[in-house]
């Protein structure tokens, strides 16, 4: 029987809703199903015939390979054949649930890698004593290890959805890493606040963050005392962390909230609990306060802040703000209000359960309403790097070269100065393309220190494909076959201009594919 002619599905690089995407039907290895795109696309899919059945795996084979691939692309830091096969075997819902159940995903390889970073498990006090002033140090080692661990986790960890949410909350509760004492305090905050609650409860996360040494220092609560208020945290906890800038608060509310947080400080060195939360009774403004429609009587102590944080964490405006931001992170930039409303309702009805919100965002209904394939997101530079390394299974011997590459692209973890965190938009990142081509060219030439991709590895990845099929094979490796026909054809034309498929030609072909417009999106 003749091999069916392979057909391709383009990644929809058409971000502009007014331009029809150039989707063609994709190769379905299982046969039988055509790869049409979600019914929710409306007019855009009219040219492509039947609507898809978006949904969990059913006996009728309702889930399309597209959706599994899409799910993998949005749950992980980049497609790998292994992730995809796992998702296929578990099915859409099964795979999502397994990733949500992150604590029960064995991560042996990752654990072995993390063991080389002892600072990750140390207390702030221990870090201070070992790498700070008492040891004549400048606190750099914990910073270096946390950066490295973060990058390596995003590439290697099996708990990919967890790492995606860690990145989301890290940006949301941005803390700038480079100044002392944040170089030391960020480690505990990353572990005990962000990672402890990334797939937990939003209210718990908010409270833990408010009490973290890193946030108390970063946004100046440490200097916020009775009669000498500092409004920095009070402003940003509403503007950035809960309500959003158009939330129901005034400048007066900010001033009053600053009074609420007076006394929210940390144990100073050399205390054993250095960096941990300490409520300084004497620094707290005990007077009555009125803000956000709440009347706080005198003498409320630390409970005042806890009360307001709980109020913020369960507010309808917070639900809407967080729901929208999470949907934009996990799906795409401009989720419809109906989808946001559903997720916000989930937020409120579960009291802020993050897993439930993720489940709602990655539900069949949400995919039908706002299918990511129709609204591709731009990989931010870190994601781009991770995707290349994951798809190729590159050997990572040391993280320094990866960090250096991220520096060239302006996307080192925790290196964003202001509390709004790294942007996540095409407009912000989509003009700097040369640094991506540069990384692609270097990594496939083994010019990224600490990263190695051998010739045999690359030939192994394309699985014996002949020269005439190389671009297609590379497409399968890097994007599961989702590269646009144009990009595949261009790479193939490059390969075809050489008499033989040498290792050098193959390296360049991989680099060109990773530099393609298709690969910049997910």
């Amino acid at each position, binding site marked *: 029987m003749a091999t069916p002619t392979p057909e391709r599905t383009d990644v929809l*690089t*058409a*971000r*502009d809703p007014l331009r029809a995407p150039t989707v063609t039907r994709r190769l379905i290895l299982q046969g039988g199903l055509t790869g049409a795109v979600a019914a929710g696309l409306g007019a855009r899919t009219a040219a492509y015939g039947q609507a898809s059945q978006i949904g969990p795996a059913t006996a009728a084979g309702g889930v399309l390979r597209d959706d599994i691939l899409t799910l993998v692309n949005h749950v992980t830091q980049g497609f790998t054949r292994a992730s995809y096969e796992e998702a296929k075997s578990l099915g859409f819902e099964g795979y999502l649930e397994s990733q949500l159940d992150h604590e029960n995903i064995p991560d042996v390889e990752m654990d072995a890698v993390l063991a080389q970073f002892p600072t990750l498990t140390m207390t702030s006090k221990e870090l201070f004593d070992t790498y700070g002033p008492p040891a004549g140090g400048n606190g*750099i080692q914990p910073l*270096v290890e946390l950066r490295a661990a973060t990058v390596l986790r995003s590439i290697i960890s099996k708990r990919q959805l967890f790492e995606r949410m860690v990145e989301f909350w890290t940006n949301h509760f941005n803390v*700038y890493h480079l100044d002392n004492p944040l170089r030391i305090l960020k480690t505990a905050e990353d572990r005990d606040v962000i990672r402890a609650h990334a797939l937990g409860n939003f209210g718990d996360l908010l409270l833990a963050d408010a009490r973290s040494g890193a946030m108390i220092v*970063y*946004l*100046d609560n*440490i*200097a*916020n*005392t009775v009669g000498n*208020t*500092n409004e*920095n945290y009070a*402003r*940003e906890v509403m*503007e950035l962390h809960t309500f959003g*800038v158009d939330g129901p608060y005034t*400048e007066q509310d900010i001033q009053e909230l600053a009074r609420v947080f007076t006394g929210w400080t940390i144990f100073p060195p050399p205390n054993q609990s250095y960096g941990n939360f300490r409520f300084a009774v004497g620094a707290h403004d005990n007077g009555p306060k009125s803000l956000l429609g709440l009347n706080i009587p005198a003498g409320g102590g630390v409970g005042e802040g806890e009360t307001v944080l709980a109020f913020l964490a369960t507010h309808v405006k917070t639900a809407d703000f967080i729901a929208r931001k999470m949907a934009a992170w996990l799906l795409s930039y401009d989720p419809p209000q109906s989808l946001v409303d559903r997720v916000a309702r989930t937020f409120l009805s579960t009291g802020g359960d993050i897993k439930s919100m993720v489940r709602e965002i990655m539900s069949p209904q949400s995919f039908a309403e706002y299918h990511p394939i129709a609204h591709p997101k731009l990989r931010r*530079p870190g994601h781009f790097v991770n995707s290349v390394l994951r798809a190729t299974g590159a050997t990572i011997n040391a993280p*320094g070269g990866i*960090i*250096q590459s991220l520096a*060239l*692209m*302006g*996307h080192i973890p925790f*290196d964003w*100065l*202001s509390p*709004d965190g790294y*942007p996540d*938009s*095409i*407009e*912000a*990142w*989509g003009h*700097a*393309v*040369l*640094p991506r*081509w540069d990384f692609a*060219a270097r990594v496939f*030439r083994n010019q990224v220190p600490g990263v190695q991709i051998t010739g045999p590895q690359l030939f192994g990845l394309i699985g014996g494909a002949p020269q005439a099929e190389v671009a297609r094979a590379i497409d399968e490796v890097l994007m599961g076959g989702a590269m646009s026909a*144009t*990009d595949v054809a*261009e790479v193939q*034309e*490059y390969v075809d*201009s050489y008499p033989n498929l040498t290792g050098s030609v193959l390296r*360049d072909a991989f*680099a*060109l594919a990773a530099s*393609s*417009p298709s690969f*910049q999106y997910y």
Partner: protein
Amino acid sequence: MERHGHEAHHCDEYATLSRRGFLDRSKLALAAVATAPVWLPKIALARGGSGDPDVLVTVFLRGGMDGLTTCVPYGDPDLYTARPTLAVQPPGMPDGAVDLDGFFGLAPAAAPLLTPYSNGHLLIVHATGSTDPSRSHFDAMKFMETATPNMGVTNITSGWLARHLQTSAPVGNGTFRGLAHGNLMPTMLNGAPGVLPIADPASFAFPGSPLTAPLRRATISDMYASAEDPLGTAALGSLATIDLLDTIDFAGYTPANGAVYPDSVFAQSLRSTAALIKAQVGVEVAHLDLGGWDHHNQMGPIDGILAGLLDTLTKAIEAFYLDMQQAIGRVVLVVQSEFGRRVAENGSAGLDHGHGNCMLVLGGHIDGGRVLAQWPGLAPDQLGNGDLPITIDYRDILAEIVQIRLQNPNLGEVFPNYSPNFQGITV
């Protein structure tokens, strides 16, 4: 917002890696903006003067620079009532201001500005800024950079400087009309034709082996020829810009007049800007960000954080000014910040978000050597909710530069819903 500047970390491994001495941001998640906005009428691209327009260098200080430290109104006694510990002392006192005109002075850390000031090329505008009442950094920046203060939610996502470029004919062939130093496109240049974010112009080169470069370049060029914007335009623009920048020897560039640029990322970006301007390759705008100005705590105007930032800023500007002497008649450099800071100090030797601020305008055709101000006074009843009022809309300053020095009369498009009132800052 976090208070610290960025220059102080000393780990050698990272000294060259962390290129961020500034806060880059673009908050726009939506709408394609590479083309002129829908509401922008088709207008004949204007070239309204003789000779080429000046090159405009814009510097945005992210976080809210304290204008009352940078340019101290030491002649106003209410300053010292409001800031018993933070106010810069009058000239003649220890750590006192550098006198400018008998009422205003420069913070000691900003003393390098005296060089262009005393040559009549630096104008300081005071009690100016964006009239939008927002005290949110991010909204204030957005409104200032899109030039949409007090307009609430608009669908205007393009930057004012982008709209200037959209409504004016290119000086060169339009391929590379400007750059933003860094990795992100600032809001001010959102939608700007022929502008790229470039972290380091000296290393903006096509990667990989020169032997295979032509074919690889052709492949990439073909792939991006039909790619969606902004990537498509950015890619093709990058390829052309690579060739253009290749003609400029940044590494071997020797600043003129013995100017020495400090080592800071900011200063080095100004140095490469100078090289770029002198190369006359058609660059019309260059943008730099410098972040870390949000001093709620321990502001340190004399020997602390603010002093350090002013030192970084002004030494770099002085070097640029000296370097550009022979060409200063065709350059305008503008320094602004999203808002100033409150007049009264807070309890942690810092200042909270304010309103009115000062702005710096430097250039050969700028009527400098003075402080332009309609000084409202700093007594509590003269302030707006404890903040320095704005008596001169920042758009008045920018509009005059755009029309007179950049030769673009399309002010209605660049600054929508606003009739600028020129202050006579150009000569």
